[in-house]
């Protein structure tokens, strides 16, 4: 990788003072599981790395009056093992535990999970986020078996975030801090489909640091189900996170968010409508799965992902109501 200068601030204020105004000048280093690989591939060549691992205020999971506050430096391992998360935010615990590599869970942080770059192999091989050649994307007719089945381009990569779908389904927000101030953004709006090749797939600005995730109190039954090709380290092919508010056995409101099928976590509003007022059974769960993938626009090699997404929704729903009281 290219050489860089290294800064080791102890506070968020010091850290944001070291960032640049434009992408490419400085990068924020936390777990490094994505960033260092990007730098080795020369996809990111920052002049400065701002290590945030020694900023104490970014650590820890706290129960608050309104829910849960998760510091950006909390590792996926800590999240997966946290008793509070396990008890009340099952979908989040499952998404974190779903990462098959203990090493990645030990190193990778929740902030990094949300800020990681897409795994699209065109992007990783230097063709850019849109893989444009002669004014046309290479992806729709190319090697697209792991690409998007929703969104319709010109961005065909899928969001790589493990926590994104669960956080969107829970109505979580992220706190973004710059030298100028602090803003809170719903996770649903943190992920964006970039309008141009030069844009980013997240709302974070180059002079900002994601400092924490705020998850509202979960009065719901939640679950995440990921469909994977193998048990070892890889990203899911499709995933679904669900959050249900129930009255007895009846669903009063549902959030169903698909992962790894679009450039952002993809809210399946069709499935949400299909579940309202229903009791979750194998039949209603399957119907919700079908409703979730209506309108999918698969590419030449990835129609199979439509089936996987459908099944992920069904299984996540069945799991979410396992603990539901009659």
């Amino acid at each position, binding site marked *: 990788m290219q050489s860089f200068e290294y800064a*080791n601030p102890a506070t968020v204020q010091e850290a944001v*003072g070291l960032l*640049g105004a434009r992408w490419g000048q400085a990068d924020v280093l936390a777990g490094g599981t994505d960033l*260092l690989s990007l730098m080795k591939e020369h996809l990111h060549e920052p002049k400065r790395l701002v290590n945030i691992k020694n900023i104490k205020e970014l650590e820890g999971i706290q129960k608050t009056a309104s829910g849960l506050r998760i510091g950006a430096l909390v590792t996926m391992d800590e999240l997966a093992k946290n008793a509070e998360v396990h008890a009340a935010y099952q979908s989040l615990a499952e998404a974190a535990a779903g990462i098959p590599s*203990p*090493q990645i869970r030990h190193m990778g942080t929740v902030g990094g999970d949300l800020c990681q770059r897409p795994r699209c192999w065109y992007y990783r091989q230097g063709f850019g986020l849109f893989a444009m050649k002669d004014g046309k994307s290479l992806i729709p007719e190319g090697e697209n078996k792991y690409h998007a089945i929703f969104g319709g381009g010109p961005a065909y990569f899928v969001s790589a975030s493990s926590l994104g779908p669960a956080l969107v389904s829970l109505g979580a927000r992220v706190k973004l801090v710059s030298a100028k101030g602090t803003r809170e953004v719903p996770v649903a709006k943190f992920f964006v489909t970039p309008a141009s090749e030069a844009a980013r797939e997240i709302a974070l600005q180059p002079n900002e640091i994601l400092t924490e995730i705020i998850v509202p109190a979960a009065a719901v039954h939640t679950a995440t189900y990921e469909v994977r090709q193998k048990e*070892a380290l890889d990203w899911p092919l499709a995933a679904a996170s669900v959050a249900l508010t129930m009255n007895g056995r009846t669903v009063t409101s549902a959030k169903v968010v698909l992962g790894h099928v679009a450039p952002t976590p993809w809210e399946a509003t069709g499935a949400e409508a299909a579940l309202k007022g229903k009791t979750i059974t194998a039949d209603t769960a399957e119907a919700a799965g079908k409703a979730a993938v209506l309108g999918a626009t698969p590419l030449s090699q990835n129609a199979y992902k439509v089936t996987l997404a459908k099944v992920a929704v069904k299984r996540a729903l069945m799991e979410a109501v396992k603990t539901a009281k009659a």
Partner: protein
Amino acid sequence: MSSKKDSELPVPPKSGFSRRGFIRGVGIGSGALGTGLLETEAAAAAPATLGPGPVPITLNINGKPVNLTVEPSVTLIDAMRNYLDLTGAKRVCDRATCGACTVIMAGKTVYACTVLAIDAQGKNIETIEGLATGSALHPVSKAFYDNDAQQCGYCTPGFVMACKGFIDEHPSPTEEDVKHGLGGNLCRCGTYMGIRKAVLQAAKEMKGAVKNG
């Protein structure tokens, strides 16, 4: 070529080399700074940036502090292999995927290819070289030998460290735990069955050792 870009990055309020942020950040503690004038001066300094040229660092590997001078861009695996002659951990994928570079840092298994050496300061790093006691193999290494848990052996040092880290976290693993607990390492010879048996054997032995004091 890049000088224009460089000048656009905010300059730390106080330029030049300050060891304050560096030393504090790596957890060596302020004791190393001494007191008096130096302390006051250091406290007033902004967080320094280090590099991009080589900087002196100290790593604590297998219980011994070692000093070396590396650029901030040097990874822990490259520091160990190229500067310290610790060639047990292997650099294979170099992309946080295969696990051949696995070491235990601050009690947790990590990929040494994806940790900057400068970031590994102040943490206890255990490598395959530190496992044996004299000529006596560590229970995990011995269990690999007993259960034919390697073929070409290239993944073995990383796998042994991953297994030790796993057993440290799960002292009484079930077969199912083992199956799901080693997803961060790859063996292209496919010796997984032997490795799983080795973990169960080693876990039993290590537990016995603790009981016997």
